[in-house]
């Protein structure tokens, strides 16, 4: 009636696997209230909830009515596995490694020495952050919930938004030491065939000890992470995550990270915000186009100023030119150095504003922007035109919905400014060409990064630039195709 196959789990092996760690708790379980049955309870203090262990596991297992004295350990194991114990979803483990993984995930383990097997019951501790407003991706009209560090909470948030049985969660683990739990999320029939398998393969091949940061996932699943441009869409919004799953993307949730990762993520995805679906389609389309324009302006404005001021003065009307000459009359630094210096100062202020506590950060931004900038102009350290150009470029960059894209712009700006300082507009054209070649050569999990602008014959370009009316908006991204192709 009961299986007699014997596994390799033992209390001593489990204790040895964890070393002499103080948070590993173990005690002999009195099965049915009787000692000497060779049943031991293990759990990790802090990860498992002792209250839940006591109520749902220990209490029924020590009940003599459920587990009479004469019951053999094998039979007791089977009874516990089949629901005699209150704890739901017990897992039978026959390898010590599997038991350690479950303990690290917040389960408790009941070791049956005689059988060399263990039953693990998920009883995670309830200490988790409450679902809160997303910090970075704010919207005016739209849901106000954001991902938290607990994987089960995040998966529940997605389930609440996509009430379809086609929604799949595949559990994975990454990081030799961190053992971070991951969920690969996709909608069966929406994601291209084979894409989920490919992403799963890449996640399985993550060769690192620690997967505790966003970059540990986003950089490791890309083939060549050298590009500054983001190719994995990272979001802290469950609604955005769900919408992208419906569009056919594959998502990744990681335990300990309050964000979701979405693939494939072409360039056009980083120009969209969750707010786009909240407003009127005309205005949303206008804002999307504005973001593309802002991307170009933010990248090019400082470089164009340097090029025109140093090489192509004839492009500027005489009145403006004379104003620029007057403004720079007593500034001792060359134009290129002035602009690069201001770009660096702007980035320093930006970083200082982020790192400092919020009240101080805001004050530093105001002081840096207004007082120091004004003082620098009055002291003739920089010319006011440069301040205007850099501020304009910076503000345009802040319209980027994705911070990773803004970071890429900061790098592109410096390269273009350097090229402009060396060769004027010709240098800008050269470096822009190189960046375009670079972007066109990128891919996100095999999908062209510049899709739909390149790589598919120019179809669906309007879909990237505009937000179609809801009646005409097809949910699935047509350029993802039906099947994943390498």
């Amino acid at each position, binding site marked *: 009636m009961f299986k007699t196959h014997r596994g390799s789990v033992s209390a001593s092996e489990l204790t040895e696997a964890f070393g002499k760690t103080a948070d590993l708790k173990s005690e002999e379980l009195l099965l049915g209230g009787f000692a000497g049955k060779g049943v031991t309870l293990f759990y990790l203090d802090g990860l498992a909830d002792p209250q839940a262990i006591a109520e749902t596991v220990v209490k029924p297992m020590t009940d003599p009515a459920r587990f009479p004295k004469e019951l053999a350990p094998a039979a007791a194991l089977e009874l516990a596995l089949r629901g005699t114990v209150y704890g739901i979803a017990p897992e039978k483990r026959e390898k010590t490694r599997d038991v350690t993984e479950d303990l690290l995930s917040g389960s408790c383990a009941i070791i049956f020495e005689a059988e060399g097997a263990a039953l693990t019951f998920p009883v995670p501790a309830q200490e988790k952050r409450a679902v809160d407003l997303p910090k970075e991706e704010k919207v005016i009209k739209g849901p106000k919930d954001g991902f938290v560090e607990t994987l089960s909470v995040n998966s529940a948030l997605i389930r609440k938004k996509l009430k379809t049985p086609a929604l799949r969660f595949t559990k994975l683990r990454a990081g030799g030491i961190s053992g971070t739990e991951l969920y690969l999320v996709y909608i069966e029939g929406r994601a291209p065939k084979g894409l989920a398998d490919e992403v799963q393969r890449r996640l399985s091949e993550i060769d690192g000890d620690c997967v505790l940061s966003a970059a540990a996932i986003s950089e490791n699943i890309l083939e060549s992470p050298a590009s500054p441009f983001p190719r994995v869409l990272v979001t802290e919004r469950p609604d955005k995550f769900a919408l992208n799953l419906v569009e056919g993307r594959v998502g990744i949730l990681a335990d300990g990270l309050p964000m979701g990762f979405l693939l494939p993520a072409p360039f056009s995805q980083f120009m969209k915000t969750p707010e786009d679906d909240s407003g009127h389609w005309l205005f949303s389309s206008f804002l999307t186009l504005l973001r593309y324009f802002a991307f170009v302006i933010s990248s090019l404005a400082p470089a164009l100023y340097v090029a025109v001021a140093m*090489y192509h003065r004839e492009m500027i009307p005489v009145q403006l030119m004379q104003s620029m000459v007057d403004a720079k009359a007593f500034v001792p630094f060359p134009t290129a150095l002035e602009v690069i210096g201001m770009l660096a100062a702007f980035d320093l202020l930006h970083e200082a504003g982020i790192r400092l506590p919020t009240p101080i950060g805001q004050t530093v931004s105001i002081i840096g922007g207004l007082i120091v900038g004004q003082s620098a102009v009055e002291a003739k350290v920089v010319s006011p035109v440069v301040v205007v150009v850099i501020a304009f470029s910076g503000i345009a960059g802040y319209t980027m919905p994705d911070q990773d894209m803004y970071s890429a712009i900061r790098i592109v700006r410096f390269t273009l400014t350097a090229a402009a300082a060396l060769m004027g507009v010709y*240098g800008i054209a050269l470096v822009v060409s190189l960046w375009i070649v670079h972007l066109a050569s990128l891919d996100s999990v095999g999908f062209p990064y510049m899709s739909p602008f390149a790589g598919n014959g120019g179809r669906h370009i309007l879909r990237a630039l505009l937000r179609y009316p809801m009646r005409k908006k097809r949910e699935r991204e047509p350029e993802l195709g039906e099947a994943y192709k390498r």
Partner: protein
Amino acid sequence: MKRLFLLLPAIFLLVSCGNGAFFPPSREIEDMSLVRVLGIDLEDGNIKITGLTAGGASSESAAFSGSGATLSEAVGLLSRLPAGKNAVFSHVESVLIGEKAAGRVIPETLDFISRSNELRLGTRLFIVRGDTAAGLIEDSGGELGDLLSLLGENSPYLGVFAFTAGECSAALKRSGACLIECVKYDENVAPCGFAAIRDGKLALFLEERASEGAAIIMNRLQGGEVSLSGRTLMINGAETRFIPVEGPGGEPGAKLEVSLTARLAGTDGRTNAGNAEDELTLYVGENIRLALEAALKLGADIYDIRGSLMEARPFSAGAFSGFSMPSAEIDWSVSAKITGSFDLREGAESVAG
């Protein structure tokens, strides 16, 4: 991608091939002095260049000069500007040519402007009557650039507009002659008609009424006040239609139909129009006659009547290939209409007819 990076050194060298520099030369803004007006004169057989820089908050407008056997040599020998600044010619708006120099330097000037990588074909040309360009620059002070830009306003006569270097070059190539606006200094910079250039030399001057006629023929009359028999009229605009006709010998000719509208100063323009329309018709007709007489004297189609005829009949352009001023029959008719009235400005002087 690797091949692209290998090509980069070649591209860098292409940027400034031939001058030995690795990167193109750059200049800082504060080292530049923008030249707005350039003057060309003849002095002791040499060409003298006078430049007037733009003034601003950090520096005052200044004049500087250089001489040489040719225009290029004169530009190359320009004296250094104060504080070691470099003259930049990319914002030169006007080129003044002294009356004496006009007889010799016009083709060289046009050639220099077209070849220069700083000067533009849109630079306006002026001939200074009764003075040298350097003298006008000196007399008018630092605001000369703005004064030349506003030449059409408060003009003593209608039909004030400047031809650019590009237009003059095209006209010379087309008909061997071109017109250049004239200016003089009389307490202020003022326009004074056109100069006709033929075969690279100054041929004749078109005085004010002939200039008005030229403007009407070229469809560039913008409007202004005219005083006739003690009455002041404000011409709103004029339109000239070109109708091809055939002369007695079969040669192509043209009929000009000019229609213009005007307002009469006073409270009730229509009631008090009287014979103002007839007088205006005669006045404009006489202006056209003077302008055509100048063209006949010159023997060149300086108003590009042939081009206007080809525009009017684009599918028969070949029919006008034989059009030439000496042989062409040109007739004209003028119709003037008083459309309303206006209040004469206080203290305004009547424009001499």
